[in-house]
């Protein structure tokens, strides 16, 4: 570098000035579209706002979350979100759905990733094939599976009856016993590819000579998997699982279309939108949205801490 110190520092100053200018549109956009609306949602949850008259919202404190009145008889009656069985049902549905779907996706994703990590003829075709479920819009896959799971004309009932798995057609999406299973089938089908690709990227970073050495030592392939592959791919697997868990916790589209009226599959997002828009309980829905946000924020902090995502821009 031949530039004199003063020129250099002038350049640096110019650089950080433009940096601020370059960041401004993005920061402004995110503030208007994410920051401010989030604050307003939290604010609405402490008011009596209604959809038709948002501006007339009045502060009511924690009433939407929990309130109680003392009867003359001395009994106390509680009301609000924290004692609402419908809300806790939705929380339970969301947690149940997230844990089961992500576990299944991790197992199937691992199997697919191991297959794709092997050298064989037609690997390109398999990789292309598993990208198809990922590329299909959620709404479309909900509709496609809704047709395949149809109680009278669905191909899955036909297939299962031919194989002898069931002896009479099942109303998969309508019956309360199977609605959650239907949702899980579609979600696992749709998102396993994403999991498989993340795990595959992790697998490909494991150096091949480790396996070479294990093979020479005569280590059984199953033992190789549990002693070598699994520990080494664990960081990538954990990141994939956390990403998917956070995503599964906010599920909306699939359930809204596939099983719209089932109490067994109503998740926090579905319930909150129902209150916000359909039932004209805007403030109550805001309180539900706020609680969901808090839950996911806690999980995210945990995720960043576990994943130790590299946040620094420069050092390598």
């Amino acid at each position: 570098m031949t530039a004199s110190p003063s020129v250099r520092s002038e350049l640096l100053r110019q650089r950080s000035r433009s940096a601020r200018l370059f960041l401004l549109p993005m920061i402004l956009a995110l503030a208007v579209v994410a920051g401010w609306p989030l604050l307003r949602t939290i604010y609405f949850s402490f008011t009596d706002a209604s959809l038709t008259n948002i501006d007339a919202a009045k502060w009511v404190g924690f009433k939407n979350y929990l309130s109680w009145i003392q009867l003359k008889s001395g009994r106390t009656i509680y009301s609000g979100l924290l004692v609402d069985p419908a809300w806790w049902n939705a929380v339970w549905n969301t947690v149940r759905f997230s844990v089961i779907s992500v576990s299944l996706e991790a197992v199937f994703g691992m199997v697919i990733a191991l297959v794709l990590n092997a050298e064989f003829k037609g690997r390109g075709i398999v990789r292309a094939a598993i990208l198809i479920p990922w590329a299909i819009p959620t709404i479309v896959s909900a509709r496609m599976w809704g047709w395949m799971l149809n109680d009278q004309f669905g191909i899955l009932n036909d297939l299962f009856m031919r194989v002898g798995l069931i002896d009479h057609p099942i109303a998969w999406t309508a019956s309360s016993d199977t609605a959650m299973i239907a949702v899980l089938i579609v979600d696992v089908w749709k998102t396993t590819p994403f999991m498989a690709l993340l795990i595959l990227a992790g697998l490909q970073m494991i150096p091949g000579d480790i396996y070479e050495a294990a093979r020479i030592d005569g280590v059984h392939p199953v033992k190789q998997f549990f002693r070598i592959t699994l520990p080494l791919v664990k960081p990538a697997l954990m990141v994939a699982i956390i990403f998917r868990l956070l995503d599964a916790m906010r599920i909306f589209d699939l359930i809204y279309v596939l099983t719209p009226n089932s109490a067994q599959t109503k998740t926090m997002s579905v319930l909150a939108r129902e209150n916000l828009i359909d039932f004209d309980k805007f403030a109550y829905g805001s309180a539900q949205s706020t609680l969901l946000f808090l839950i996911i924020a806690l999980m995210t902090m945990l995720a960043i801490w576990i994943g130790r995502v590299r946040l620094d821009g420069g050092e390598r």
Partner: protein
Amino acid sequence: MPMSIIKNTAFYALVVVIVVCAVFPFYYAIITSFRTGSAIFTIEYWPTSFSVANYVNVIASGSFARNLLNSIIVSACVVTLSLLMAVTAAFALSRVRFRGRSLLLLTILSVSMFPQIAVLAGLFEVIRLLGLYNTLGGLVFSYMIFTLPFTVWVLTTFMRDLPVEIEEAAIVDGATPWVIITRVFLPLMWPALVTTGLLAFIAAWNEFLFALTFTSSTETRTVPVTIALFTGSSAHEVPWGIVMAASVIVTVPLVVLVLIFQRKIISGLTAGGVKG
């Protein structure tokens, strides 16, 4: 070597199961979309009848063609706007040292984890206030919440990994940061821009919650909303043939794009994930 034959057969059987599971639902949607009348209600595993009546119906009737155009306009605008903002922001975040950079990146990352429902109430108010309710502009505006953090994040990782030397000559020549971005970085960034642009396009194309909530008339809907709300004269009379035809129309362009760019998409998807 009978053992290795058994192993090979088992492996290829697994491969076939994976491929069939992945592809069958879409295949079945396609063959259903070509069946009409009573043929649709007989269960067939192979294409046995062929009619384009469903496609003619879906395009000619209702507002589907209009909705398709809406989806194209919204997704294209979202991609353009978020890439424009993300390229300059990523330059600042990856090549310039300033205080609070890590905090800013952390904030951007956490916005991408936001549940959409958490901003729905507040965004509803903002969109009505700005007069964007029931307009395509309102959708473009609201979609920034998920495309912007993602594009900024991926482009920042990409630019960070470019060597310092490529800028040095330009800096010595006294080029402004703007010139450095457009002349030095942009030509190098096409692969990353194509990948992130494509992923942002797919995200915008598939979005449902905002599209459902911030539009009220059939003319301003995007295709996912149209497909979700297709109903017959009663809840039990879903026009399955038409729904499947619409689904195929919406999905085929995406599947083609994804298959063409599969390597880029895979690297883009995993860029944020495995770095950590």
